């Protein structure tokens, strides 16, 4: 059911190299501390590490016991401790405490801290201040890029969003620049770099400076064009409810580093199952970008085909059976297994979404996007979150969902998602999203409606100017989508993807001045040195770098765009995000 692309679509580069490089680097670093050692890993890095070097590999390099970093006293008895961590002050303090308590009890050990992807000066200062700078060795594991699939690469830095856009801390700018630099050196050189957003500009400049300093071997480029975009250029899209299969799986089950854990309600047994969800899963690959309404139909068709294939063996003789068993059966069994998993998952999704009156939620969301029926939407929202329209909208959700969210609202204000409403104006729907997270059990019926509030009036204007809301006249056939709006049931074309489409079409920002003005500028388009090859393929491979995270829905939309226009998009993101994680990043309900 996956729509076939144009036959002239270019081939994607091979990103498995990135994993090999990372693995080799890590092993080298581990060997710098020869002998048996215990390894402590940051919780955030565990899934990532699983993709690069599994437990067996680590044990082969003299790692004895593996522990997760928990900010508590350790029980390890090893004489050599190795810590693989993100450069966070809290973690470094904890390590310093370990060293100091060892010193106090007269225990001698060797300590090695491996910061990834890099260390920060603030971390070193902590070591110095705690008097342990001379007692530990520090290293950097320059691991920037984790390929999650053929066309998705992630930096696995979900903190990028909060640090950069909420705290205003530019610590990860150079990191992003270095990630881009790595892509450039392995798959470049790039012909054109486009971008929009303050952070995008800074990352571009960082990349450019790094490239100027270093050397670039002359090579045939595999990626021709790059587009950098800040998350805060489009907050609306990630907050929309996802309805493409991959997005739903992420929303309901949480996809971590390209794999997901399906519980007993999906596996129809008493065990959970962890599976990779990527293009290797043939069943998944066909339904991942599909609108959910198509998924059941597709899966049942597949089930019927499978049954037919199995039934073939009825009329077989011994010889044929042998061939069947040795060649086909394994594949069929595999397909069967995957099929039942995804059917189970789909049923689960249906159940959960029905419970939430999903249809109603979507309708409300779409209306809000369109700007119509706002009053009805309001009453729907109101009743679901038990509030009444009042001047200061902040109060209501706090009252409903816990006073600790007072702090979260301060954050939402900071980031521009929440503004004091003028009297008589309509709802600040961000709060409803927050409420959903906070107390999902009691507020299960919350609507996912929203609007991009700081730019509220701008969003309307933007959507008009870019025609983000398709005409609602004719029926929208979700089985044969005609534009990117299918990822939101035909209601809305994601702003981020539309911008990318337009800029690529116009080879720049000409004609989009009005749009960029509404998005606070910082747009750029730079052409690199002319290439002397005549291959056009790389020009049609575009790397889109999302700074602050991107959703599976946007990835599906870009895949669609690629198929339409003969491009291939590679999504490079600081992390895969969704509405829950985006808002969670702003929650201040824990110390």
């Amino acid at each position: 059911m996956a729509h076939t692309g144009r036959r002239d679509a270019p081939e994607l580069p091979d990103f498995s190299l990135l994993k090999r490089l990372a693995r080799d680097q890590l092993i080298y670093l581990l060997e710098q501390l020869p002998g048996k050692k215990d390894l402590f890993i940051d919780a955030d890095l565990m899934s990532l590490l699983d993709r690069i070097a599994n437990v067996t590999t680590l044990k082969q390099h003299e790692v004895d016991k593996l522990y997760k970093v928990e900010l508590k006293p350790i029980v390890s008895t090893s004489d050599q401790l190795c810590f693989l961590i993100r450069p966070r002050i809290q973690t470094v303090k904890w390590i310093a405490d370990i060293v100091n308590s060892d010193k106090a009890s007269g225990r001698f050990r060797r300590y090695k801290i491996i910061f990834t992807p890099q260390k920060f000066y603030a971390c070193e200062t902590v070591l110095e201040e705690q008097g342990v700078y001379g007692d530990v060795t520090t290293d950097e594991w320059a691991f920037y890029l984790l390929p999650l699939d053929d066309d998705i690469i992630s930096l696995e830095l979900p903190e990028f969003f909060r640090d950069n856009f909420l705290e205003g801390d530019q610590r990860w700018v150079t990191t992003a620049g270095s990630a881009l630099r790595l892509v450039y050196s392995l798959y470049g050189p790039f012909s054109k770099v486009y971008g929009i957003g303050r952070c995008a500009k800074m990352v571009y400049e960082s990349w450019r400076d790094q490239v100027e300093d270093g050397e670039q071997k002359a090579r045939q480029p595999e990626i021709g064009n790059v587009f950098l975009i800040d998350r805060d250029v489009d907050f609306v899209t990630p907050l929309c409810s996802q309805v493409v299969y991959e997005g739903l799986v992420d929303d309901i089950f949480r996809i971590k580093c390209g794999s997901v854990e399906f519980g007993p309600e999906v596996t129809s047994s008493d065990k959970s199952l962890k599976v990779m969800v990527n293009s290797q899963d043939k069943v998944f690959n066909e339904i991942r970008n599909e609108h959910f309404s198509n998924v059941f139909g597709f899966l049942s068709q597949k089930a019927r085909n499978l049954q037919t294939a199995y039934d073939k063996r009825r009329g077989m003789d011994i010889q044929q059976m042998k061939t069947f068993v040795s060649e086909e059966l394994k594949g069929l069994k595999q397909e069967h297994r995957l099929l039942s998993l995804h059917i189970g998952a789909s049923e689960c999704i249906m159940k959960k979404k029905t419970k939430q009156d999903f249809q109603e939620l979507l309708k409300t969301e779409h209306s809000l996007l369109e700007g119509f029926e706002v009053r009805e939407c309001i009453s729907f929202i109101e009743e679901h979150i038990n509030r009444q329209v009042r001047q200061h909208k902040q109060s209501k959700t706090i009252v409903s969902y816990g006073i600790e969210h007072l702090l979260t609202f301060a954050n939402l204000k900071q980031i521009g998602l929440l503004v004091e409403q003028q009297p008589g104006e309509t709802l600040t729907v961000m709060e409803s999203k927050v409420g959903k997270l906070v107390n999902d059990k009691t507020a299960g019926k919350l609507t996912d409606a929203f609007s991009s509030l700081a730019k509220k009036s701008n969003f309307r204007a933007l959507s008009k100017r870019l025609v983000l809301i398709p005409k609602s006249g004719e029926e929208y056939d979700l089985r044969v989508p005609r534009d990117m709006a299918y990822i939101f049931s035909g209601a809305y074309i994601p702003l981020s993807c539309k911008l990318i489409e337009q800029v690529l079409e116009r080879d720049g920002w000409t004609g989009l001045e009005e749009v960029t003005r509404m998005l606070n500028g910082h747009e750029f388009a730079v052409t690199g040195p002319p290439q002397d090859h005549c291959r056009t393929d790389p020009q049609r491979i575009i790397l889109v770098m999302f700074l602050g995270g991107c959703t599976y829905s946007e990835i599906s939309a870009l895949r669609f765009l690629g198929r339409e226009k003969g491009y291939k998009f590679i999504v490079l993101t600081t992390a895969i995000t969704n509405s829950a994680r985006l808002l969670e990043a702003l929650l201040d309900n824990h110390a």
Partner: protein
Amino acid sequence: MTRPKPEDDEYWNSSKFSAFTFDDEDDEFTKMKESKRAVNSMLVDDDDDDDDVEKVSWSGEPIGSKPNFTHSFLLLQYTLAYAPELRKPKSECKDYMSDWSPEETVRRMRKGKVFSLERFRSLQEKLLLLDEAVSENDGNVITAVLIYLKKSLSKEILFRELMLREIALRHYVHYLKEMGEQKLLVELMKALGRTDDMALMQYKEHLNIKDEGQRRDFLKNCLSLPFSQDDAIHVQDHYTLLERQIIIEANDKRGDAEIFKKFPRKASILNMPIITTLYYSCFYHYGESDVSTLTISEKQYILTALGARAKLKSWFDVDSLFNTKNWLGYTKKRSPIGFHRVVDILQKNNAPVQVLQEYMNLIDDPELKLSLAQKYKCHDIVIDTYRDLKDRQQLIVYRGKVERGSKEDKKIEELLCNMQIRWKN
């Protein structure tokens, strides 16, 4: 840069610093010569003869022009930092002898090379350094410079300067948050005049207090902080609520009362949000405690109480929620939330048909009433509504949906035969 005097060369040529040849035209070595001359003059002269000696800084300029290094410090710096380097070959020395301007330093920091910030001692240079770091956009470097400034500037001066530098300020605030320097943060917010942020920051500390009694006391103290008006209300509520919860929890923990045996508690009521607490109260302690002091809207109250009482199937209590006396003294049913909503909740709690119908009849909008009645199979209401709408066609259609010979069927038949009704179709 002045050329060295010839007589100096002799001194140096014969000294132990013979690693260098003085024929180099390299600027760096020219500088070095100047430095050596300065050091030489320092080693020889006493302080009393200061006026005769030309004091020279590393860049070769006379010290008098810049309020920079003192003699002794110059010597100290030289000996500690550079003396060993003199023995190194020229190529390595280049790194340590390059231009140490703020721009160069920041560039080195960005690339992870060795650098030294201690040389920037004047306020002017420190600020240049900070501004340069900010213009290079690398947060890691900006924070590193700020760490140095924190160590080497009084907080009043630092705060004053940060007030004019928004990006640097943001990095500094984030750094202090991560380091847990609560006290300093509060002072900073105060200095910036951001009193409500300051109050919020202090309030946030409550998240670190595990014991509810201590947390309540902490919140009580927070009440006097300069919150914005709206925030103040919420903090007050938070305190009141927690105080209430502690009392309730103490009583209910034992679970003696009948109701707890029938509907055991799923969790402690401590630290639960207002609505949850309200629901709990309406469920377990209806009519007892008074939650009206908390900031809850009528709608919120009704919905929550309705949910709780419906769960317990106390239809009588549900009824009294909606009863109001109008000015004539008659009891009338009124709801701040739509009655369709009430019906939904009742239905989810398996309310008996009579109860459902009673509330369904209160729905104003006939379309809505119809759809709900049909959904929940309240035939009487459907029939009555069609009768009220004088819609004969629909009534005929609906007859097909009821059981033949049932009383609904008979009712429809009666209505259809009724000549007095002026059907519209």
